[in-house]
């Protein structure tokens, strides 16, 4: 009796690789039928009537011609490079039936080593975004490219003749081809300049290297070579410069084994808890101003530099004492050449001190590469400051803006707005109508990464390519193509890049090969090419007597730290619903930005989570809800940038609508509030720290959509059982010292045989036995896996209201626990997905056999059989089951193209959960069968595992003694959650080891 309750997957006979219109056509057929079934399936009687008759006629439309090497329904991966941020990670684009569906990390890539962050994973939903601009606009009205070209060229011609200034503003774009085209384009004018603006810039690092090494560069940090890492506010595992690259590298030194009980030492100084801070061995709670003080004293102690003038003593710095300084200096000394000090301060002095320390420790050339530098941040605050002045003066005749939204991402927007009005020509390349685009004369929306050819040069010695995997869905162009066209070349981007590569890249390639075609094909296929770049030497010259900038630091008020969220690095991602809903790895809040404040600060102000406060400084006022975050410095508040973007009002109706539903954002208001007005200029440096901010309680509330309500493994004191004050057994942890003494340290004392069985072992697994192992020491909690899972498994976006009601749909979540005092916060993160228990409590209770065990040890969920009693979810000790409370929105034909046809889209009223990517296992099985063998190690990579930047997740066959997971299962760090209950989970964890002295941090209390 197959009535068809499940929602349509967008597939059918393959719609064809060539045209999207065919695919859309196909899905329209499906849509009709779905609507039909929705109407019909509603009442039992109607279902019975319709089901007993013929279904409506459907057509199966084959292609007219079979394209070469086209396999309908097969996932094919194409190499590309991510442009979610300038880091340039390697990407494998999974394409099916002509639709790019799943972004995966490229394992061979030298930077990302197979990892990919949440932003990269979320590319597909941005590609199919129905609100993306379809074609160019002229004065806000849709226009043809011809008329745009004509108008722009006309204006540019006039400017060329008048000698007016032309300014091109972009974010960091490492494309060598684009650089060439830009210089050709700007070369046409007497005064043409390219201004690079990074929303979160590393300008001060470049400036400091200019002063100490004579080159304005950003070094390439090699965390894989660092045995001692000291970070001052640099969230290098979460948001800083190239987090995936750094996480992959950082991991190399973080996995102690029985044979080699070694790991790097990581000290972290920060005012607000970050992903990186939560993974540090020692985390010190300091203000951003304290970085300079500590660095100066450290530099002095290491003999790198004398104390700068007016340097306060170390006593003023919060929890960091002189004793700590001594220990830290000793550690650094011992690890000369294998240590790394990094700092995210915008204080030039601090960065100069960092350089001096790294130089003194002999780290340059080892853990920092300055001769093969990073190009991942090229923004210069000074150039931006000049541009803004020029705009104000009316010097700029033509302003072309890509990537950044000048009016949104920068402070003093009214000044910029006035300046923009003075420009003869303003062109925006934004793909949504952002604030700059709204005032631009022409909007030339850029094609999505997956629709276009791109190349990248993220670090010295590496260039990468990115090929399109679908034709542009709208009439869009790339920046490259526009600029080429406006400088007289009508070539398309592929030709431009290919020509440039032939001219400039191939001659420098380590393996140029004889045949240019083969070289190109190879580059396209592999996605990157290593090139020889003559090292650009940069010698150190100690800076003169450093002087602490006399920053006016009012004693009153708070310091506000403006930061970028892990899931929302730039405002151009604001239209991405996956990223908007992604719970922040640190705060677990989705959908909003907020003021982070410490518990004592909140108490002082008399506010709690969700209370709206008004931040005001000078004439800037900002109202935001409060989030109370342990580990926050008492005088520092944190607010995320890249929120309040125009156009995000569209998310008002993102969730289900019903009687008591509340819209995700109040009608007509964007998601979150723009905090950019709090940025401020200190000379020519754009400061992300604002002092002297006063806070006022407004008395209003905006509840935050938090996915985790209780944040500690420590139980509430008033109700904790005697002798069991915490649940640290769930996320076990030990110290390196204890680990060396006893590799099993941290294991709770359990007096129960976990394999004790009341009944005969009736279900031996004779074939495969799938298992998953998560190394909690490697896991940073960055949440890339959460989006990977969402993309792979068609997990709906449910909106603020549903998340607030604890009804988020993620199949895997990152639990984050914080315990301990503010100055010694113990943060543990743990990815939790279905544990696939062999003795699954969920299975026995399902009345209709909708969830049963497979012969390979998977806990299967047959959605179409589920009647939705939710008993299984209640009985799940790990609470990993997710119920479809409503029919979630799948009403956009275009956005439905992002759905994975391998996974059913669940209807309302059914339970769902992690399937251990069984669709991938089944696909691998068929392929293996073709070769007449069983599935081998490496044939299957589950979605979360595949993209984990820290490679924390291992999937494999526990029955195969040679598989990696069986090897690791013998590791003494391995444990299973709630093992004493005998659930016999197939998902294991590996204990956290902190490089600390002292004993294990577990309290064995179970009997």
């Amino acid at each position, binding site marked *: 009796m197959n009535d068809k309750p499940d929602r349509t997957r967008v597939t059918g006979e393959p719609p064809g690789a060539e045209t999207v219109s065919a695919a859309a056509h196909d899905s329209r057929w499906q849509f009709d039928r779905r609507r039909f079934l929705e109407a019909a399936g509603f009442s039992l009687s109607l279902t019975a009537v319709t089901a*007993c008759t013929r279904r409506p006629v*459907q057509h199966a*439309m*084959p292609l*007219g011609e079979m394209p070469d090497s086209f396999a309908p*329904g097969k996932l094919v991966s194409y190499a590309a490079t991510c442009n979610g941020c300038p880091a340039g990670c390697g990407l494998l684009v999974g394409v099916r039936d002509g639709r790019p569906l799943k972004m995966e990390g490229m394992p061979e890539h030298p930077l990302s080593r197979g990892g990919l962050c949440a932003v990269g994973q979320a590319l597909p939903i941005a590609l199919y975004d129905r609100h993306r601009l379809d074609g160019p606009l002229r004065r806000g009205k849709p226009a043809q490219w011809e008329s745009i070209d004509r108008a722009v060229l006309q204006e540019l011609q006039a400017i060329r003749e008048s000698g007016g200034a032309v300014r091109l503003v972009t974010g960091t774009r490492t494309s060598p081809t684009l650089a060439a085209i830009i210089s050709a384009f700007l070369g046409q004018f007497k005064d043409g300049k390219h201004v690079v603006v990074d929303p979160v810039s590393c300008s001060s690092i470049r400036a400091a290297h200019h002063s100490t090494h004579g080159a304005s560069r950003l070094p390439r940090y090699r965390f894989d070579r660092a045995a001692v890492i000291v970070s001052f506010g640099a969230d290098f595992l979460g948001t800083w410069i190239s987090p995936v690259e750094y996480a992959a590298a950082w991991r190399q030194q973080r996995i102690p084994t029985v044979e080699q009980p070694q790991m790097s030492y990581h000290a972290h100084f920060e005012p607000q808890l970050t992903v990186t801070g939560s993974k540090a061995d020692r985390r010190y709670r300091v203000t951003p101003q304290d970085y300079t003080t500590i660095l100066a004293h450290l530099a002095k102690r290491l003999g790198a530099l004398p104390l700068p003038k007016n340097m306060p003593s170390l006593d003023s710095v919060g929890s960091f004492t002189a004793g700590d300084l001594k220990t830290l200096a000793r550690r650094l000394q011992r690890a000369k050449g294998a240590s790394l000090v990094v700092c995210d301060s915008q204080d030039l002095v601090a960065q100069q001190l960092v350089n001096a320390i790294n130089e003194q420790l002999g780290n340059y050339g080892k853990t920092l590469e300055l001769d093969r530098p990073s190009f991942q941040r090229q923004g210069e605050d000074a150039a931006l400051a000049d541009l803004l002045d020029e705009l104000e003066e009316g010097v700029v005749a033509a302003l072309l803006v890509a990537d950044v939204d000048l009016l949104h991402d920068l402070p003093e927007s009214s000044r910029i707005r006035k300046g923009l009005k003075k420009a003869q020509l303003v062109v925006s390349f934004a793909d949504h109508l952002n604030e700059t685009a709204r005032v631009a004369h022409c909007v030339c929306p850029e094609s999505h990464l997956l629709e276009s050819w791109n190349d990248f040069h993220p670090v010295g010695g590496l260039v990468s390519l990115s090929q399109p995997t679908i034709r542009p869905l709208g009439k869009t162009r790339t920046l490259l193509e526009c600029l080429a066209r406006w400088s007289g070349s009508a070539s398309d981007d592929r030709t431009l890049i290919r020509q440039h590569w032939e001219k400039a890249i191939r001659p420098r390639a380590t393996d140029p090969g004889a045949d240019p075609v083969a070289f190109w094909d190879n580059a396209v296929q592999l996605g990157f090419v290593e090139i020889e770049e003559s090292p650009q030497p940069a010698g150190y010259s100690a800076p003169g007597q450093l002087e602490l900038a006399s920053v006016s630091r009012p004693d009153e008020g708070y310091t506000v730290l403006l930061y970028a969220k892990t899931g929302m690095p730039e405002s151009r991602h604001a239209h991405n619903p996956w990223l908007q809903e992604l719970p922040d790895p640190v705060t677990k809040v989705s959908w909003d930005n907020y003021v982070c404040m410490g518990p004592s600060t909140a108490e002082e102000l008399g506010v709690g989570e969700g209370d709206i406060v008004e931040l005001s400084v000078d004439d800037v006022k900002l109202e935001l809800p409060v989030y109370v975050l342990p580990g926050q410095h008492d005088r520092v508040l944190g607010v995320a940038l890249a929120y309040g973007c125009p156009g995000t009002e569209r998310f008002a109706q993102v969730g289900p609508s019903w009687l008591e539903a509340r819209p995700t954002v109040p009608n007509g208001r964007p998601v979150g509030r723009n905090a950019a007005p709090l940025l401020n200029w200190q000379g020519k440096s754009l400061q992300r720290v604002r002092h002297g901010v006063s806070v006022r309680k407004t008395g209003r509330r905006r509840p935050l959509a938090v996915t985790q309500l209780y944040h500690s493994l420590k139980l509430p004191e008033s109700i904790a059982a005697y002798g069991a004050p915490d649940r640290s057994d769930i996320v076990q942890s030990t110290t390196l010292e204890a680990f060396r003494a006893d590799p099993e340290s941290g294991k709770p004392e359990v007096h129960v045989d976990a394999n004790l069985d009341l009944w005969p072992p009736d279900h031996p697994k004779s*074939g495969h036995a799938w298992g998953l192992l998560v190394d909690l020491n490697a896991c940073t909690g960055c949440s890339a896996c959460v989006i990977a899972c969402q993309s792979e498994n068609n997990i709906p976006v449910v909106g603020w209201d549903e998340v607030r009601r604890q009804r988020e749909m993620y199949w895997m979540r990152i639990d984050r626990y914080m315990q301990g005092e503010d100055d010694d916060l113990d943060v543990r993160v743990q990815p939790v997905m279905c544990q696939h228990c062999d003795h699954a409590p969920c299975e026995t209770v399902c009345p209709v056999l909708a969830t049963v065990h497979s012969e390979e040890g998977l806990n299967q969920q047959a959605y*179409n059989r589920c009647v939705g009693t939710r008993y299984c979810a209640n009985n799940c000790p790990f609470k990993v089951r997710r119920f479809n409370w409503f029919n979630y929105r799948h009403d956009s034909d275009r956005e439905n193209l992002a759905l994975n046809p391998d996974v059913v889209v669940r209807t309302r009223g059914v339970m769902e959960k992690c399937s251990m990517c069984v669709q991938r296992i089944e696909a691998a099985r068929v392929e293996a069968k073709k070769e007449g063998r069983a599935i081998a190690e490496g044939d299957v990579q589950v979605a979360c595992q595949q993209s984990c930047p820290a490679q924390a997740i291992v999937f494999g066959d526990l029955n195969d003694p040679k598989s990696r997971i069986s090897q690791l299962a013998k590791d003494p760090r391995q444990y299973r959650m709630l093992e004493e209950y005998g659930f016999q989970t197939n998902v294991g964890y590996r204990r956290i080891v902190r490089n600390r002295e002292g004993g294990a941090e577990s309290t064995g209390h179970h009997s």
Partner: protein
Amino acid sequence: MRERVITLALLMGLFFGVLVLAMGAREWRSPGNQQGYAPEQPIAFSHRLHAGELSIDCQFCHVAADNSRYAGIPTSDICFKCHKFVTASFAAVMDERKKAAKEKREPAPVVSAELKKLYDMMGLDDQLKPQDSTGLKPIPWVRIHELPDHVLFNHQAHVQAGVACQRCHGPVETFERMYQYETLSMGWCVNCHREVNRTGVSGKAVHASIDCAACHY
């Protein structure tokens, strides 16, 4: 008297009710079961002729069956492999030749009515030359075999295990018009999976999973 009239009316009502039900019962099938569905197709393609009489292998046209989840409805260019040359039945061509010989002229090209539809879809004129005005249009075949969306059937797995096409699609080589031969119900699938685990497929031992996740995920 009145009672009799009422009784009579009720009896007649009952009779007609039963009659309607009985007539409906012939059409009745369990919900979702489309067994015997034989819709009219845009082109009256005969599997009997192609697969039966001419013994063309199934995978000659359904090319994807052994390497994809979908068997693949043949693209028009596959038809054109043969129908570039074969434009009408042999008898019709011979007729024209005879007629032409009788009338002492070059035989005109003969295009059968059904193949004309194919050529129209492909944008070809009577001489099988591409017409400029119309491009290649896909043929809107009416879908017959369709599993519910929550079932993932993989042709590749079955073809590679050696399952004959006829096992599920029936003796297609005898069908003039294609129809759904089997119920394609879950029980039908499962029973075959159970059976082949005992008997094997064409003498080869196989392991056909009867786990839910073999088809539902």
